[in-house]
């Protein structure tokens, strides 16, 4: 097990390295000039060129990538913090430390000052949604799967298909019209400030509901499929034939086995809820990680894009690792080696 985990951690580091380089390459070949974006339409071409040079964007790609890596690992000082460049890039942590993600040209602040607060906001949203999605999906999935073809199964399956197939931007608007506009129970946006008289809890209701509806439909269908498959296994038939009550068949024999396949899927929802909530965060003006990543991408803010990518990838790989370990614990037949 220890060797397996270590192997995965080495894989994580290599994946992060490869992904960070790919992000650099993709950003390099995407349209637009970050200096123009930073200075705006009124700036003269000479000013744009000057900023381009100061940001050292005219260095070769590999030089810039190497410098970024050196700054991140604390091997190199961040050259953009040099006061002579007059970029006014200042980081209270200094210009050389491990985990220095650089300076955001979009927010004009160190990436470490920008990213963690937004990640915390998204973690709050994702945590609440996850805490609802998992038990809800398991209960509905098991209920549907244990009697395949019954009215309960059909009702839950239709519910799952409908909620999954409605995009978040549409369900967000529908739900607001009902609960916000008509009933006046919840606010329309979630800026996470209480000045307008709406509590933080009330601002979280709609985004959480949108995520729960969208995501639980999918997980319910996975659990239901797995449960239905298990219920058709010979050992379940044997359990029924030997006279065990239906409840005991389901709880003792079916559920644990039916959870093995959806377990990975459930853990993968953490990735979606952290880095895939761009739409929900945008619809509700939620100050989160997904919306920040979208804005950074539109502005070619390479330092912020790189940091967000590495964090999202780390979360993805760690959850994958946890799912592998959990998989083994649920099914001892599987050997991690």
């Amino acid at each position, binding site marked *: 097990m220890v060797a397996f985990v270590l192997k995965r951690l080495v894989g994580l580091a290599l994946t992060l390295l490869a992904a960070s380089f790919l992000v650099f390459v993709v950003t390099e070949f995407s349209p637009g000039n970050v200096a123009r974006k930073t200075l705006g339409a*009124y700036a003269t071409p000479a000013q744009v060129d000057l900023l381009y040079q100061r940001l050292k964007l005219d260095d070769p790609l590999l030089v810039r990538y190497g410098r970024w890596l050196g700054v991140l690992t604390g091997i190199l000082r961040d050259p953009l913090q040099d006061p002579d460049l007059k970029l006014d890039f200042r980081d209270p942590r200094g210009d050389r430390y491990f985990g220095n993600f650089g300076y955001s040209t979009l927010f004009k602040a160190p990436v470490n000052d920008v990213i963690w607060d937004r990640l915390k906001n998204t973690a709050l949203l994702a945590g609440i949604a996850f805490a609802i999605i998992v038990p809800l999906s398991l209960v509905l999935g098991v209920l549907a799967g244990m009697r395949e073809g019954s009215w309960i199964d059909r009702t839950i399956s239709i519910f799952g298909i409908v909620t999954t197939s409605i995009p978040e931007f549409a369900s967000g608007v529908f739900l607001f019209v009902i609960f916000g506009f008509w009933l006046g129970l919840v606010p329309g946006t979630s800026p996470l400030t209480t000045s307008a008289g709406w509590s933080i809890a009330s601002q979280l209701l709609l985004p959480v509901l949108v995520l729960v509806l969208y995501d639980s439909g999918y997980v319910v269908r996975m659990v239901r499929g797995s449960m239905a498959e298990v219920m058709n296994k010979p050992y379940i038939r044997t359990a029924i034939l030997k006279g065990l009550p239906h409840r005991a068949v389901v709880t003792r024999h079916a559920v644990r086995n039916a959870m093995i396949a959806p377990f990975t899927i459930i853990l993968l929802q953490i990735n979606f809820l952290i880095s895939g909530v761009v739409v929900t965060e*945008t*619809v509700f003006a939620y100050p989160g990680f997904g919306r920040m990543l979208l804005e950074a991408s539109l502005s070619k803010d390479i330092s912020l894009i790189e940091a967000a990518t590495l964090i999202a990838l780390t979360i993805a790989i760690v959850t994958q690792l946890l799912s592998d370990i959990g998989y083994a614990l649920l099914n001892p037949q599987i050997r991690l080696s």
Partner: protein
Amino acid sequence: MNDMRDNPHVKVLAGELAEKKIDRREFVRFATLLGLSATTAYGLAGKISGESFAPKAQAQALPKGGVFRLGNRIKEIKNPHTYSWGAYDSNMSRQVVEYLTFTDEKGVTHPYLFEKWDVTPDLKTWTFKVRPGVKWSNGDTLTADQIIWNLKRVLDEDVGSSMLGLMAGYMLKDADLGKKDDKGNPKKSQVLWDANAIEKVDDSTVRFNCKVPQVAVPEHLFHYPMAILHPDDKGVFGVGSKGTGAFELVDFSVGKQATFKRRNGYWGGDAALDGIEMTDVGDDPSAAIAALASQQIHGLVFADPVQYEALAAMPHLQFYSVPTGETQVMRMKVAEKPFDDARVRNAMRAALDPDAIVKVALHGLGRAGEHHHSSVAHPEYAALPKRPRDVALAKKLLADAGHPDGIDVELNVPTDLPWGQVQAETSVEQWKEAGIRVKINLMPGASYWDVWTKVPFGSTIWYHRPLGIMTYGLAYRTGVPWNESSYSSKEFDDLLGQAEGVYEVDKRRELMAKMEKILQDDGPLAQPLFRDTFTFMDKKVQGFSMHPTNYFFGWKVGLQA
């Protein structure tokens, strides 16, 4: 300056007060902006309305108190002198730090931190008087030295302010300061053209000695990066920064909220509001609609045409709009075939129906353009005879130019603004009838800005500028960097040069009419619309008016309980 009571704008205000179109407070507010002393303004108001002079606090006023909540984007605001887009960032800092002049929603520029000014007949020497009694929030008095520090800072190329682009022509010159670029080649710098270009005459007088005549200096001083900062703050703005404005910034969080508190002792009279909260409503149009519907905010800094119908259906909201000079110009590179023939360019114009395009692209929230890039929002706009759509004329012009079977061209369109795409698509359908076959090449805005001066046929966004001649000088004068069509007309250049040397609007309008006609007959553009900028505010909001550049002024606004 002459006695300000003779100022035509004061006379208009007096007429409006007599007809009770405005109240006394508004009269005094605007009359003082026009340079009238407060005492004279109150006296004049009393004479017109028959009421005796009353202290400001007892005058009819906006409702006092309350916190106004505005939907905005909460972008970084650390460096006001280098703001890049204006509507979002400067609308936060402008509640705290102010400008030397004030261009109102009608395009008229008034005194502000500069109390008044004189200009020599050659329009090269501008003498500005600093408004007396203006105090910073730390109690310091506003001085000429502080203003000059700001002016010199924005004109320092190392700072990176876009004021440089506006003022370089008349305040700077190229110089070799021994600087080299990364490859070791000598690099030209821009410095003040004369050591006395910005001159301190005395503690309350600043003089601009311009290299060439310039009529738009007061308008330039209202450009959004020209905020007057306290030199002690070293060009950095944030919570606790000193300002001359009616509010102080007390809390700020990028992407979330900016909170302002009223400051007592404001030189224009204490603001009616207790405070302002600006909340980030994001880029998604539905989020802003939802925030207004649930009354999380009282209004939006500006609204988009796609939001209009939803917002217009909400009974608690009031619609505000103002015509602007904002447009997308479908400009043709005059050196490139087939646009090198003026008849082809005229055919492109003749085949379009601007009124129909306004309806489709802007849902009617705009005005028809006349293919000369001068807007009713500009004070010197001259109305020319209408030229209705004439497809037969367009076909004839093309045939005369050697294209009896029509032409095939490609129009490059940035995707930044949805209405710009719709304008292009509608135009393409109308051009088809005249045998002008146009293929649209949609490009991300960022890509378009890399090639906007190079493509043969492109649809370029031009934002509002307070004077029509400012746009003409940037876009159509021979050889200037932003002349994206490479258009060149000696007659046009001469007229523009004359117009830039004329201070009186009526005389400038006569010259403008000639330039507009040149562009209609020979110009490089098809320009079917100007958009109105608009917004919605809660009906509780009082005193608000829409500004063509979407600027918001907290001191003008009150909130009914």
